[in-house]
């Protein structure tokens, strides 16, 4: 059998103005079944995908933000959010959804999926991957 690859899904676009954010999430969900070593990166406008309190009633589009909180159930537990991108946009982790996963090796203890990283750290993470997805 082929070895497990490290996949990084890179998200740099805001939600709703274009479909990339949602359709890239669809790849992550389908991809979960393939049991690779998956990480998600949110930088530049991609950080906007994770904001809390998204209410799409006024624009008649499906609010897909609840899907991010399901990522833990799909064993996607490494969600890297770039610090500089947040700061540049006047945001902090408090403005983002609190995403968690349950570690079955530790009695289903709830753990944070979001890891705040610097741009330099994000570059190292990217360099360490096998395949990079961009949308």
């Amino acid at each position: 059998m082929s070895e497990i690859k490290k996949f990084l899904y890179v998200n740099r676009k805001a939600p709703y103005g274009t479909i990339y954010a949602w359709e890239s999430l669809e790849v992550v969900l389908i991809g979960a079944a393939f049991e690779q070593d998956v990480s998600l990166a949110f930088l530049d406008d991609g950080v906007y995908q994770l904001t809390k309190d998204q209410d799409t009633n006024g624009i008649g589009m499906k609010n897909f933000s609840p899907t991010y909180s399901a990522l833990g159930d799909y064993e996607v537990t490494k969600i890297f959010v770039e610090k500089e991108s947040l700061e540049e946009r006047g945001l902090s982790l408090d403005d983002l959804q609190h995403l968690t996963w349950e570690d079955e090796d530790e009695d289903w203890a709830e753990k944070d999926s979001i890891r705040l990283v610097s741009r330099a750290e994000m570059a190292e993470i990217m360099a360490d991957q096998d395949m990079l997805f961009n949308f």
Partner: protein
Amino acid sequence: MKLTIQINEGPYQHQSSDSAYYFTKAALGKGHEIFRVFFYHDGVNNGTRLTTPPQDDRNIVNRWSELAEQHGLDLVVCVAAAQRRGIVDDGEAKRNGKDATNIAPGFRISGLGQLVEGAIQSDRLVVFGD
């Protein structure tokens, strides 16, 4: 080298499909294997056989169909993206009650799993988009 190519934009609107086509052709010319060409987002619009581009311009859809036939390429249009944008084959027409199909020769409609599989089985994934 085994390659999977991903194309995120439709024909003519962006240069993505053109760049991907020339890259794919060059890779084949060098003896590399194209595992799959996967069309996602508006890229699925590369798979309609109903385009009539001006005579003096390149025919993007036909070019892909011809390259696929020449080299046995696997051109896959993502089913979810295709449903949203109206790219239909016989199976999809039956399943979704459509009275027509428009898929171009050489293209097939399939799931996102085909992209993920491509990334697993290939040495490189090259994405062309906006």
